[in-house]
């Protein structure tokens, strides 16, 4: 038995409503039926994000660009981080792109359920659309910021290599990681508001556990396997490698962390679905 099932008989949808029992089925069909609403949520996020700002979508570039400048100055020029000959601006920007996408998507997904609590208590829709739309709308910012990377690569005369074909794989892993962590945190945040305050710290720590400010070659070899469990380590190293050829091509550790993300994502989906039945009562 499941919470509620929808069956079509002669074109008339039948909904059976019963109490929640244990772990619920995912019902991804339902999410598919509501795809248009997902589109509207993404559209709303994008519309609202830069309303009444002067620079508008320029912020999508300014944030990573300024961070890149600061990192290049302090970690690069002053601390002389080994970048393997890659110019510091490219070295940092190519890592900041996936990282900032991940950090923003994760933070927004975490808050998505709480921020829409009014809607949740007044109308029915699959709540999973909320964190998914946060993760999707972040891609637009990433796309805009990516344009600057192309400009910079042209400036430094660094033509993309065939390795760049790997980018979609790393991007997919970044999306899956943000969604996986976002689902867990969004569901927890609906019940415990502590999550909302903990996430910014959590994201900061996660950044230091990822090769954003430094290359992963600085991590001692015997700890590499543990480090590799962090999927964002694989994603960021992957981005750098695919764009600049710096570092190692994807290895078995990346495959292992992809499996880890898949498990986390599946767990997140089920946990989130389970929370959905009661969220309107507790949020």
């Amino acid at each position, binding site marked *: 038995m499941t919470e509620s099932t929808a069956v079509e008989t002669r074109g008339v949808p039948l909904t*059976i409503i019963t*109490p929640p029992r244990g772990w619920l089925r995912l019902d991804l069909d339902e999410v598919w039926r509501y795809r248009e609403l997902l589109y509207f949520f993404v559209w*709303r996020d994008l*519309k609202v994000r830069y309303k009444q700002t002067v620079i508008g979508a320029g912020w999508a570039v300014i944030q990573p660009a300024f961070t890149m400048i600061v990192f290049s100055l302090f970690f690069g020029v002053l601390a002389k981080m080994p970048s393997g000959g890659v110019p510091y601006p490219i070295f940092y920007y190519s890592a900041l792109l996936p990282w900032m996408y991940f950090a923003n998507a994760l933070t927004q997904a975490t808050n998505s359920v709480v921020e829409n609590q009014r809607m949740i208590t007044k*109308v029915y829709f699959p709540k999973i659309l909320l964190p998914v739309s946060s993760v999707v709308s972040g891609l637009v910012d990433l796309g805009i910021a990516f344009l600057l990377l192309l400009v910079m690569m042209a400036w430094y005369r660094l033509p993309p290599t065939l390795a760049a074909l790997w980018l979609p794989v790393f991007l997919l892993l970044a999306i899956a990681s943000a969604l996986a962590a976002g689902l867990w945190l969004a569901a927890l945040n609906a019940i415990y508001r502590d999550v909302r305050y903990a996430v910014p710290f959590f994201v900061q720590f996660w950044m230091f556990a990822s090769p954003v400010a430094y290359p992963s070659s600085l991590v001692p070899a015997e700890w590499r396997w543990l480090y590799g469990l962090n999927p964002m380590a694989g994603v960021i190293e992957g981005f750098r490698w695919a764009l600049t050829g710096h570092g190692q091509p994807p290895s078995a550790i990346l495959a292992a962390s992809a499996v880890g993300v898949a498990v986390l994502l599946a767990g997140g989906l089920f946990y989130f679905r389970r929370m959905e039945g009661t969220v309107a*009562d507790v949020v």
Partner: protein
Amino acid sequence: MSEIVIRAESLGKQYRIGTPERYRALRDTLTDGLFAPFRLLGSLAGKSNGSSNGSARTAASGLAAPNSTIWALRDVSFEVRRGEAVGLIGRNGAGKTTLLKVLSQITLPTRGRAEVHGRVGSLLEVGTGFHPELTGRENAYLSGAILGMSKREMERKFDEIVAFSGVERFLDTPLKHYSSGMQMRLAFAVAAHLEPEILLVDEVLAVGDIEFQKKCLGKMEEVTRQGRTVLFVSHNMGALRRLCTRGLWLDAGGVRQSGSAGECVDAYVASVESAAREETGCFDLAARTDRHGDRRVQMTRIRFRGADGGQRSRFEFAEPFAIEFEIEARDTVRSCFVGVTILAADGTNVIGTHHCDTAELRDFVRGHSYRLSCLFEPNTLKPGLYALQVGLLDFATWDVYDWFYSVGQFAVTDGTGKYGRVSDDRPAFVHPVLQWEWK
């Protein structure tokens, strides 16, 4: 007989009340010290161990001990056939909204089962999903999508919706610059063009000016005439009688009566009348939630006083009585007025009066409290039961600060002649003493 489209079997919904562990903030964690995280984990584990099978004995006593639970719905069973318009009747907190929420899957029942055949559209609030930064046009599309309209459907109906709303000129203005009345009109226009097979409507249509209410009720009539199935919550007994084919009276979470709309309304009104005999004539409003408006200015208490100054809710026909209002300003507001409507038991508006008819209109200053009294002439209302509707509105725009469909009831009795007159069986609501003269 047409087929059954909604079948509810022993639906029950339990809510936790008080302050359970579920909702912890960082502040609590800090003050509680080191052990809070462990308790938090403990409550998490406890939660997953099955909170579903609570005991019905803890139900609806009405008294809430901390961490206790309440059954908002208890053993509710009923059937609705295609094309029926069902009016949900009951006091505040009887479970009407909860039932709509369960049927529209917003919340899951704690026990029981329901089958719903057909697409459900629920209208529990007007303007669900509106975003203040988006324009009227953008919000119309967004709200339509949230209520379940497809983009194509919306595009087809857009002009009609705009015409119905009457906000054409402001379509490209951000919603935050709209008055609350305009927001309401736009929101209802979108909702009114929803075409699900089953429509669930909470008491959302009661807000706003009379003209708008009429429009809403007209639309509801149209919907029921088209043969769609409607479940409709209202305190407007007249509208329920007119619009509904069937009534379902909920009391303390359970079905008290089910039958024709007329029968249910009559039985409900009779019960409310007998309950009103126990009313004390004092209504504390601070904690009530059955209100609308942004509450920048709000009613905190309303008292009824008889001619002798005593606090009561029953007055003789020929007795002058007063209603006293206590108002609290949570924000500074210019020219806000108190509007009062006296409703008869069938929902007819009998008397409408504004404080600024005779008292001065003044500004409300943040942090201050105000008291206001309204004296009702004797010989005004025929014996019967009346409800008091009260609003605090902006004088210029009629934007709502605070508004109650029904604060509570009071009764007018035949009288003993103590005040000079006894009522007879005249049909009209108002029996004033007018000047008659032979010419």
